[in-house]
């Protein structure tokens, strides 16, 4: 399944070394003593925000809290934030542009764009060192309708990127050359890959897209050097496997049950547990062909990253018929819960509820709506939602949800979970689908009442789920959220504004019109030459900000 496009790394190093010795031994001594970076290792990624000049994984660290310790930009001076440079992709992508979070190491940004472009960019000038573009087949399926990518994973000199034709690739970060590629699934069936790989010690964790087609989701682990697959967790069980009792006794239904895994997950190194959100069952809106809870769709799963074994799960939306994928960043924090320290995982869900779970056991601690919702009133004592209506009567969260994959942030100390909230109203009209492989298989349609939609940035008290503050947007946004220890929150909206807020009060302190909606992306920040930089992707541009001198 895997193909080395140039020699495997160890052999290549030997070859290069022997060439140096035979051709240019005198000069090689000089080069040899200069400090050559071998790139970040696992310990560097594990250290998270400890080195403020780096941002090495999608959320900045494994916890997914997206909260930088940098304080040079603060509420008093944030109004002096100005663009330093803008990078333009030079590609055209209507509707969906940058959704990635750039990684940064040693003054170089590594970022992926739509249509499987990727770049290494000088963080000082905004100029590209190299550009990568994958030759994609012209019969993409899911990848054609959502030609996006959410970023690189990184380890040593390797960058890891997934593709719209459902491959995992390793790219040399120094020149953009593909080292190896490995097929994840058959894109012609409906699969694609769009998420940012999560790199652990000796494995690369990836997920898959395509839950709108007749696909079966999975989470995979790959060897970073060889691309060999180490394990696969199927999000929809096989016949007779645990969880299959929540589906019809029909192998064909299970084999096409959906359950995509198209967002990055989070990782607790002490518990050695991986947390990952699972997407909708297929068909999306037509549930009659799949009676039952349809595990592990719309769930959060905790996996042992050594072997992919399931440790626990919690299903947010049993038997989903509204396309409310649970592909959100699971946010890990250690907080005082009712007076005692507790390791929790928090999720702001597309179904309109904010959840706090014990991340050791999966026990539900809190489930409370953060938007208007008519599908469920509350979460019962059994951990299941108390269902009110099935969507045919209108005014549920629409299929894009009360929030979506745009990352939220957790502000430690204030104990605020800050997320983009979407107030929407939709009526679902299910219809038996044709079930044709390689074709979208929604199973009905949706009527959205655009007159009754709006958005907001909302801060929730994680202990109660109550809203502490909000900032209203005129339309439902897809922008992500990032916070810093200076008491700032950065967020983007659907109208293209990139904004800074006071984390305590929600007061808007600064904004900049980027010229295109901020969709799925959230800001990242790092230190460069002693200055704090803030970056936001928007449309097909990436803009860097710093304080005006």
């Amino acid at each position, binding site marked *: 399944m895997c193909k080395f496009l140039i020699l495997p790394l160890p052999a290549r190093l030997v070859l290069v070394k022997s060439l140096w010795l035979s051709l240019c031994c005198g000069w090689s001594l000089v080069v040899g003593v200069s400090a050559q970076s071998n790139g970040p290792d696992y310990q560097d990624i594990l250290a998270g925000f400890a080195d403020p000049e780096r941002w090495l994984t999608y959320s900045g660290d494994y916890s997914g809290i997206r909260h930088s310790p940098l304080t040079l930009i603060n509420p008093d001076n944030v109004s002096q934030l100005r663009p330093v440079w803008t990078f333009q992709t030079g*590609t*055209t*992508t*209507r*509707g*969906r542009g940058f959704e990635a979070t750039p990684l940064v190491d040693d003054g170089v940004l590594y970022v992926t764009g739509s249509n499987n472009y990727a770049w290494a960019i000088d963080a000082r000038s905004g100029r590209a060192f190299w550009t990568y573009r994958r030759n994609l087949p*012209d*019969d*993409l*399926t899911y990848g*054609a*309708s*959502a*030609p996006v990518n959410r970023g690189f994973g990184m380890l040593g000199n390797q960058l890891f990127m997934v593709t719209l034709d459902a491959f995992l690739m390793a790219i040399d970060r120094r020149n953009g050359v593909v080292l190896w590629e490995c097929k994840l699934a058959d894109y012609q069936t409906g699969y694609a890959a769009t998420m940012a790989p999560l790199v652990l010690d000796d494995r690369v964790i990836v997920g898959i897209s395509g839950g*709108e087609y007749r696909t079966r989701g999975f989470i995979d682990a790959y060897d970073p050097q060889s691309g060999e697959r180490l394990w696969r967790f199927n999000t929809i069980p096989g016949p007779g496997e645990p969880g299959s009792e929540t589906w019809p006794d029909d192998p064909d239904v299970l084999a096409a049950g959906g359950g995509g895994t198209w967002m990055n997950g989070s990782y607790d190194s002490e518990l050695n547990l991986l947390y990952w959100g699972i997407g909708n069952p297929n068909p999306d809106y037509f549930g009659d062909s799949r009676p039952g809870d349809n595990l592990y769709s719309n769930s959060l799963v905790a996996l042992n990253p050594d072997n992919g074994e399931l440790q626990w799960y919690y299903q947010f939306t049993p038997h989903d018929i509204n396309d409310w994928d649970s592909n959100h960043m699971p946010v890990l924090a250690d907080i005082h819960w009712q007076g005692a320290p507790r390791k929790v995982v928090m999720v702001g869900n597309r179904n309109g509820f904010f959840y706090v779970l014990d991340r050791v056991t999966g026990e539900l601690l809190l489930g409370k709506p953060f938007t208007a919702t008519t599908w469920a009133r509350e979460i019962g004592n059994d951990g299941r939602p108390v269902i009110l209506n099935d969507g045919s009567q209108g005014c549920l969260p629409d*299929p894009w949800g009360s929030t979506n994959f745009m990352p939220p942030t957790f502000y430690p100390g204030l104990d605020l979970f800050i997320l983009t909230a979407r107030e929407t109203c939709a009526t679902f*009209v299910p*219809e*038996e*689908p*044709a079930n044709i492989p*390689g*074709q*979208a*298989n*929604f*199973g*009905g*349609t*949706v*009527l*959205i009442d*655009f007159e009754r*939609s709006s958005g907001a940035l909302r801060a929730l008290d994680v202990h109660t789920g109550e809203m502490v503050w909000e*900032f*209203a*947007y*005129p*339309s*439902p946004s897809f922008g992500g959220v990032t916070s810093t220890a200076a008491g700032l929150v950065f967020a983007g*909206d*659907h*109208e*293209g*504004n990139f*904004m800074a807020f006071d984390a305590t009060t929600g007061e*808007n302190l600064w*904004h900049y*019109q980027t010229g295109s909606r901020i969709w799925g992306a959230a800001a990242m920040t790092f230190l460069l030459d002693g200055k704090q930089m803030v970056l936001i992707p928007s449309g097909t541009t990436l803009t860097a900000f710093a304080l005006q001198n």
Partner: protein
Amino acid sequence: MRIPGLIATITLIVLAGSSTAQNVNPLEGDVRAIQGGAALFRSQCATCHGADARGISTIESPDLTLMWSESQRSASEVYDIIRDGVPGSIMPPNGLGETELWMLVAYLQDAGGRGVVNMPPGDPERGIVLFAEHCAECHQAKGKGGALGPHLNQITRRRSLESLISSVRQPAASMSIGFKTVSVQTTNDQLIDGVLKSEDAFSLLLMDRQQNLRGFAKADLRQINRLPDSLMPVFDPSRLSDSELFDIFNFLEQP
């Protein structure tokens, strides 16, 4: 949905007329093809283009019912777009067969073709004069007129007679996005009303009654009022009789 059986029947019709590349949809107006195309549309297209094919403004997907009149697409062009997708956009190529593609085109032709079916008689020459007198200050037709209201090019091919009469007699009943009435008061107590063109958390863009495009920072506005009435006056029969209205529609109907 039992599309395969329907396709088998309709395929014969398509194949019989498909010896060469065609500009005419062999299934245009075929009720079964329109129904099958509608089902295909709901399952394959509606997520982006809306259940009624009128587009979804928040994701900038186009209103496909306007494709025939505004973009003046031919049936074969639409067929090619559905089959090949739109390069550089998120509209993907499609693996549907020839019959299914024509069924989709038939549905879209049906959905887009709901203009005035039986135009009442009227005098288009007199319609020119009446349009200039009552409408042209705010509406554009055939390259002339104002911009405060929607342009009326080919409006009789896009809207039914009932809908056109309603929008003249009761303009506030349905105001399109881009033409909703807004009134703002600036911090230096200027009052400006017009139609709302765009808005975000920090700014508001409108066209004022004098048809100037004006942008405001919300921080510079003391008040923003969204008004239920249209800026278009109510034209009741005492102001514009039915026969005068039909004169205008007949003028607008002319190519």
